[in-house]
């Protein structure tokens, strides 16, 4: 084939091609709609701008996408409870720090306790999911369905059915900006989580194990890997991510609204993983892809808001994108298109026998 064609093929084969293209498209639409899209200004030492906003608001999603990536890679399934779990985690934190009061303006317990509470809750929920999937062999969607249903109820129980307010300036630090720092804190937390995860994957063989188990668990078993343990680990980690997300979500608004915290974020997380070029059937994964995917979705959300789509109507577009991407990944579709092409070129010939 011609040189340009082969170069094109090579670029297209590059792992991050799809996610980068999607991001580029979304950014392009944004800039067409809003010419000032890429403008960044500084006020009082803090950066402002659409781009800053996207990076900021996308932080929870990035963290959740990281967790979801490992779950998908190791088990070929998805964890739809992440939104509910983040709500529970946030509820626990605010409850601990606020002493259970509907509104208060000082900490009733050391900050570290609240933080630990949220993280422990996240880990516990993740471990529960992992146990159901890996040990009890329940399908991931079904297993995580339980927390999806019960999670918010549990959160409501903790908050006694009302929004709990923690009107302490210190709490907002996690959700907004620390004075003197140009970027909002959630951005740093997201970066931290991504870096730490990347580090762990680089310094241990967990990444290799997760991929092996996800691609061929029989072979993985024969080379001495413990597939059950690895899957449980993946789900526990995802739960931890949901816990962190819960902290950020509540910090942004100094309160917990058990009904709405992390609402619908699970679809976004799954979408981010898929957009990142990761197969939803498990196996090889790319953290970078999921991160790009997460910011792409955040940018997409911004685009839609700019087009005056309300937050209630947003999901329609996301649903269409999910279906398109998953259809494109489907081997059946490739088969069908292949048959169409074969029939058209060969004329319809049945394979007849003498």
């Amino acid at each position, binding site marked *: 084939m011609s040189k340009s064609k082969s170069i094109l093929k090579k670029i297209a084969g590059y792992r991050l091609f799809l996610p980068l293209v999607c991001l580029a498209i979304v950014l392009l639409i944004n800039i067409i709609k809003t010419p000032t899209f890429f403008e960044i200004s500084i006020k009082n030492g803090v950066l402002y701008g659409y781009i800053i906003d996207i990076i900021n608001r996308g932080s929870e999603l990035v963290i959740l996408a990281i967790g979801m990536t490992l779950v998908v890679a190791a088990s070929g399934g998805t964890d739809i409870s992440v939104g509910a779990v983040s709500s529970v985690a946030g509820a626990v934190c605010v409850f601990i720090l606020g002493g259970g009061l509907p509104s208060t303006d000082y900490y009733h317990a050391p900050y570290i306790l609240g933080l630990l509470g949220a993280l422990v809750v996240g880990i516990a929920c993740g471990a529960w999911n992992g146990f159901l999937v890996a040990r009890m062999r329940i399908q991931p969607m079904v297993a995580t369905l339980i927390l999806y249903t019960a999670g918010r109820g549990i959160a409501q129980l903790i908050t006694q059915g009302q929004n709990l307010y923690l009107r302490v300036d210190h709490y907002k630090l996690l959700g907004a900006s620390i004075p003197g720092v140009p970027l909002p804190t959630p951005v740093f937390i997201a970066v931290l989580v991504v870096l730490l995860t990347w580090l762990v994957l680089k310094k241990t063989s967990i990444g290799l194990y997760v*991929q092996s188990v996800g691609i061929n668990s029989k072979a993985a078993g024969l080379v001495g890997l413990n597939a059950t343990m690895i899957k449980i680990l993946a789900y526990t980690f995802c739960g931890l991510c949901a816990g962190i997300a819960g902290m950020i979500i509540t910090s942004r608004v100094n309160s917990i609204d058990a009904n709405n915290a992390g609402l619908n974020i699970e679809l976004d997380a799954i979408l981010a993983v898929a957009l990142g070029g990761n197969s939803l059937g498990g196996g090889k994964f790319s953290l970078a892809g999921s991160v790009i995917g997460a910011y792409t979705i955040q940018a997409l959300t911004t685009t839609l808001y700019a087009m005056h789509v309300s937050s209630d109507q947003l999901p329609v577009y996301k649903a269409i994108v999910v279906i398109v991407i998953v259809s494109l990944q489907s081997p059946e579709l490739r088969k069908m298109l292949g048959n169409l092409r074969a029939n058209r070129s060969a004329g319809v010939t049945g394979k007849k*026998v003498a």
Partner: protein
Amino acid sequence: MGTKMKKQANVVLAMRHIDKNFPGVKALSDVDFTLKKGEIHALMGENGAGKSTLIKVLTGVEEFETGMIMIDGNDRPIINKSPQEAQENGISTVYQEVNLCLNLSVAENIFIGREPKKMGLIDWKTMNTKAAQALNRLEIHIDVTKACENYSIAIQQMIAIARAVDISAKVLVLDEPTSSLDDNETDKLFELMRRLRTDGIGIVFVTHFLEQVYAVCDRITVLRNGGLVGEYETVNLPRVQLVAKMMGKNYDDLAAIKKKRNENNKTESQVVIDAKKLGHTGTIKPFNLTLHQGEVIGLTGLLGSGRSELARSLYGADKPDEGELFVKNEKVSVNAPIDSMKRGMAYLPENRKEEGIIPELSVRENIILALQAKRGMFKLMIRKEQEELTDKYIDILKIKTSDREVPIKQLSGGNQQKVILARWLLTNPDFLILDEPTRGIDVGTKTEIQKLVLKLAEEGMSIMFISSEIEEMIRICSRMAVLRDGAKVGELGAEELNQNGIMEAIAGGGKNE
């Protein structure tokens, strides 16, 4: 090729000049098969012989390029485009994995797709009655209203057979039906088959169990490498001749291949592996096996005799139900492969596609995987070490790959095999199990691997070598264990290692279990 052929009165199925190609492989080449009314006919052949392809072509799962199939009652040749069509033409199949819907009742399974109706709705009463009748005709008396999952596999098979017969099968194909049955159940199945034979049904019995062929079959057809070897009356074909034909050897050729290497009697050196009455229910009957340092022991027997199963029990891939295992005189309990790996064992599986390669991972990752698992999660091998080791083995085994980062699925089968071999050699095992390591590999590479095995043995590694090719094993092994029908039936020492001796041992002479 005329569409009318001289019809013999008692022939129910005739397949003539069947050719079947898959991309790159000629699966069937000019194969004939004849089935008479009221006969039980065995279809036999080793790996790649074409048995399953012939059945798939007959039952409509695959298409064929040339040839024709004639069935009694149809003047024109038939072409089955689907299992449904095959059924309509009178050919029914009962598979090894019984294809019933276990959640449904016995009666339902017998009548799926053709339930009796009354006024547009299913008539359960009639269905149950008819199902019971169909089973009674075959001397099977069970409650047809219970779900199939409540019954043993043996009974489930009979239910599947009853369904096939009820759909007025002229030809019944039984594909490895006895693999999951015990002796009692197998006898009952044979009774049923004889009854059906008396009713005039032609039965194709696909199996690898020698004893069973001689117990119940009237005639035998042997395939090899996609071609027809011959059609024989069972009474006229001694076991050894049958084995010879299946393996493509000429029994009368007495020029046996002599062992080329010098014999150092290894039975004096340290015992590395000692298995006492080790067994795993359903796959391998309890066996004893001792292996010394530097020995190469071969496992021989027909396909399905239990060779891989024995290896898996030793390695812990199937956790043994009974018996004890001693590694270097220490009692070992193996719960998972990682335990045996830590004790110095390694296992190259027979089915590299499903149990060996991790397709999307690179050559490098596939090679270092076992060693990494042995070292543990937190002791990641640094990239440089990984690359050096990978390059080393690419060199030693002459693995043909453009790059060590290429996904292993892009390599040819033979090179994939070399990668898996490298994976295990890297763990520096004391005991290496190789299950069909040279299958699907070109002759040149085969020799390389054989030489490598001998070298490793000389350096002190103990090796278990499983292969279907007798010459290969004679060349390499110092001893052989013989398996038949799921059990270890004997051992052959160095002096007895010649082709005829081995084939006799495989064939056996009669029911001696």
